[in-house]
C-alpha cells in the first residue's frame, strides 16, 4: 500500500486526533493547499483526507459537508450543491470530476498527511 511505502520524512504533522470532529470534517492548511479531514470513529480507516476545494461549486467548502455512505461507500456531500465525493479517493459520484485525495495516517494520537507532490 502506498501509504506504508512512504518514508517518515514525507509525512507532515497536522494536528492532534482529538482536534478532529467525530462524524464531521475540519479544514487544514498545508502550505498553500487546503485539505478537508474527516473522522469516522470505529471504522477502518477512520480518518480521511481530500481537498477542501469543491471542483463543481468552485469554493473551499468540502470540509463543511455532511458525511454519510452511499451503498456502503463513505462520502461527503458538498454543502453547496450536494454532489457526493468519495472519501477514499475524492471521486465525485455524480460527475466525472474529482477532489484531490491525500494519504493520511494517525501516529501517536497525531494526524499526519503525506507531503503533497509539488
Amino acid at each position: 500500500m502506498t501509504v506504508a511505502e512512504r518514508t517518515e520524512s514525507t509525512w507532515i504533522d497536522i494536528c492532534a486526533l482529538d482536534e478532529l470532529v467525530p462524524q464531521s470534517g475540519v479544514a487544514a492548511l498545508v502550505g498553500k493547499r487546503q485539505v478537508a479531514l474527516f473522522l469516522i470513529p470505529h471504522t477502518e480507516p477512520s480518518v480521511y483526507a481530500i481537498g477542501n476545494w469543491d471542483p463543481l461549486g468552485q469554493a473551499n467548502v468540502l470540509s463543511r459537508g455532511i458525511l454519510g455512505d452511499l451503498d456502503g461507500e463513505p462520502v461527503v456531500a458538498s454543502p453547496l450543491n450536494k454532489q457526493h465525493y468519495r472519501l477514499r479517493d475524492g471521486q465525485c459520484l455524480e460527475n466525472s470530476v474529482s477532489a484531490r485525495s491525500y494519504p493520511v495516517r494517525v501516529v501517536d494520537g497525531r494526524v499526519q498527511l503525506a507531503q503533497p507532490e509539488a
Partner: protein
Amino acid sequence: MSNRQQLIVIGNGMVGHAFVEKMIEADGLARFDVTVFGEEPRAAYDRVHLSEYFSGKNAEDLALTTAENYREQGIDLHLDTPVVEIDTDAREVVTRNGTRHGYDRLVLATGSYAFVPPIEGRDQDGCLVYRTLEDLDAIRDHAEHGRRGVVVGGGLLGLEAANALKHLGLETHVVEFAPQLMPAQLDLAGGDMLRRQIEALDVRVHTGKATQLIDAGENHRLRMNFADGEALETDLVLFSAGIRPHDELARKAGIAVGERGGVVIDDQCRTSDPAIYAIGECALWNRQIFGLVGPGYAMADVAVKQLTEAGETAAFTGADMSTKLKLLGVEVGSIGDAHARTPGAQAYATINEPDATYKRLVVLDGKLIGAVLVGDSADYDILLQYARNGLDLPEHPESLIAPAGDGPPALGPDALPETATICSCHNVTKGGIIEALDGGCANLGDIKGATKASTGCGGCAALLKSTVDHELAKRGMEVNTDICAHFSHTRIELYHLVRVEGIRTFAELLERHGRGLGCDICKPTAASIFASVWNEHVLEPVHQPLQDTNDTYLANMQKDGTYSIVPRVPAGEITAEKLIVIGSVAKKYGLYTKITGGQRIDLFGARKEQLPPIWEELIEAGFETGHAYGKSVRTVKSCVGSTWCRYGVKDSVGMAIHIENRYKGLRSPHKLKFAVSGCTRECAEAQSKDIGVIATENGWNLYVCGNGGMKPRHADLFATDLDDEHLIRYIDRLLMFYIKTADRLQRTSVWLENLEGGLEYLREVVIDDRIGIGEELESQMQAVVDSYRCEWKSTLADPAKLKRFRSFVNSDQPDDNVLFVEERGQIRPATAEEKRQRAGTETLAEEA
C-alpha cells in the same frame, strides 16, 4: 405564415376561458391566431364562488387569469369590448367601437343573463340581479343603506345569492314560485328538509309565492305584492330566477336559435354556420341549455378537439346534471332522476330529524338512477359511481343510506369500470388515471399534476387516492416512501419513533431502526425531528454532524463559501440604535448589506471565523439569531397597523411581535413564514404565507398554508374573527400537526394539498378537535416555546462549540480564495476571472 388561421372567441367567462386554456394545451396556437372579445372590464373570473366576494375574497382572488397571462401566451384579448355584429358572409365581427376583425373560425361563448320575471315595477332602483362582479358591487352599495333583502328564486343560484345577502348583514328572505326550494334538483321532502335547515340559519323562506307588483314600501324602500294578497317589504330585491342564453348576436346574424332561445348546436358544438361554434350557457343542445359550468367545459373540450383535428370524432353527448354543493353551509346533493319520474322507478328514503338529514335513493331494476341528499352529502361520491356506471346495487339498497354505524358496504375501486368518472371537475376517468400511470406517473402527486384530478373542488380526493393506491398495488409497484437507503421509514414514522421511544441521538436512531452511516438526507431530517421534539442545541456534539452547513455555522452559506447573517428583527420593528449597530458591524467587517423580503437586514460576505466576533457585537446590542439558516420559523412580516395607519383596525405589529417571539426557533419540515396585516388592505401580504393573520373589526382572520416562491399558492381562509387566545391556540395546533405529519422538505401548501380530507379535515383536527389531540399538540408546542434559547448566545458561551469556527485546524490564516471586488459602493464575490487577474495563477493553479 400564410396558412395561419384567425380564430375569434366572443366571451371571456368561465367557459370561454376554459376554451382558450384547452386550445393552448392542445397546441392550437400553432395553427391559429386567437383573438378574444370580452364584454366585461375584467378577464375571466370564478362565477361559481361569487358569493365569496362578500366573505373576504376580492376580485383578484376570484380571477381565473389576467390580461397579462393572455398577452404572454400570445393571445389578443380585448376587454370591455362587446361584439355587436357578426357578418357571416364576410366572416367578420364588428365591435362596439366599430372595428372589424376577420375570422376563419368563430366561437360563441357569450354565456347567459339573469332572467327577470315580467313583474310590474321590476325596473326600479333597488331591483338587482346576481351575475357579475359589477352586479355584486351594486348589491353592496344598496345593502349599505338597507336592513332587509329578498331573493326572488329558491333554486341553486337563488340560494347562493341569499348567502351573499346574509354575508352583507341583511335580514335575508327567499321567495320561490314553486311549493319547495330547489325544485329542479330535489323532491318535495328534500326541499322541505333544506328549507328547515336554511330557516334555522335565519333565512326566511316563502314558497308558493308569485310576485305581481313591486311598489314603494312604508318601512322599507320597496314592497313586493304577492298573488295571494300578502306583501313583503324590503330594501333590495335580487332576481335569481334562472338564466337566459345570450343569443342576440347569433339571432341577428341568421344563425339558428331555439324557440325559447339558445344557439342551436350539434354534437360537435357547431352552429348552423359551419365556421361558427357555440359553447356554454349560450348553446342549445338537444333542446337543452346547461346552466352548470361542467357541461360548458365539456363543450369547450369538444370544440377544441374539432378545431385542432386532434379528435374529429369528439362529440358532446349531453351532461349529467348531478351536483353536490354547500348552500348557506347546508350540504346538498342531487343525482340523476331525483324525482323518480322514470316509469317503474322505486324510492328508498330516510329522514333523520335530530340530525336534520334527508336521503333518498331512486332505483330501477336493481340499479341506482337517482338520489337526493340534504344535510349530509358524504355518500354522494359512492352513489354517483353506482348511478353513472350502472353498478349492481347491494341486496338491500337501503343499506347505502342507513345511519352510520352499520356503514354502507364499501365500494372498492376495483368495482369501478374504466369509464367511471373519478374527478368530475376535470372529467378524469379511472381509465385516464391508468393511462397516466402507464405514462410514467408513479404516485398521487404525479397523477394530480398530469390529470388535474382532485385539483378542482377536491371532493374526489379520497376516491382518487384509493384508486391510485389500488392500481399501483395491482402492478406490483410498491410505492417506496422510505426516506433514504438508511431507513425503511418515512419522515412521519421517524418522528413517531423518536417521540414514542424517547430517542435523542442519531446514533441511537440508526442503531435501532437504520443501517449504514446515514447520509445528507436522513441526517438533517433526524436533526430537524430532534429539534422539533426535544429542542436541544443544534451544535451539541451529538447533533452538530447531522446539520446542514447553514445550521452548523448558524449562518447562510453563499456561493463562495462565505456566510450571510440575519439578526432577528421581530415584525420588522427596529430602533434607531439597533440600526446603527447593524450599520457599524457591517462597516467594521466590510459586509454587503441588503434588506430582505422578510423585513430584516442580511449581512453578506463573512468568513466562518468572523461569525463569532460579529455575533458577539450583535448580541451585546440586544440582537438574537434570526434562524434564516434553518428549516424553521423565519419572520413574521407586518404592516404598521392601527398604531399609525389611518386605515388599520388592530395593532398588527404588536401581534406580529407576539407571534414571532412565540414561535422563533421552531424547527419544522421546511421553512415557515408568517405575516400579520392590520386591516383588509393586507399590506403585509399575509395571504401568501404559511400562517397569515388579518385584522377585522371583530378579531383576526386566520389564513393558512400559502406561500410565494417557485409555485405560489394563496393561503386558505381557515377561521374568522378569532380573539387573541383562539388565534394562538389554532396556530399552535396547526403548526405542531404539520411538524408531526408533513414529509421532509414539504411546505405547508403541499402538505395541505396531500392531506386526506384537505382543509375541512384540518379544521376538524385544529378547531373541532375531532381526533382529540388538541391539548397534546398545544403542550408539545409549549415545551418548545419554553425551551427556547438564542443559539448564537449559547454558542458564544461554549468554547468547545466555538472551535468549529476556526478557519483551519492548524492555522488562523483566512481562506485566500475568498476575494471581493467593489460594486455600487459595496463588496461582491470576485468572479473566477477577476480572481485570476488579482492573484496571478498561484491560488487557482493548485485547484485545477
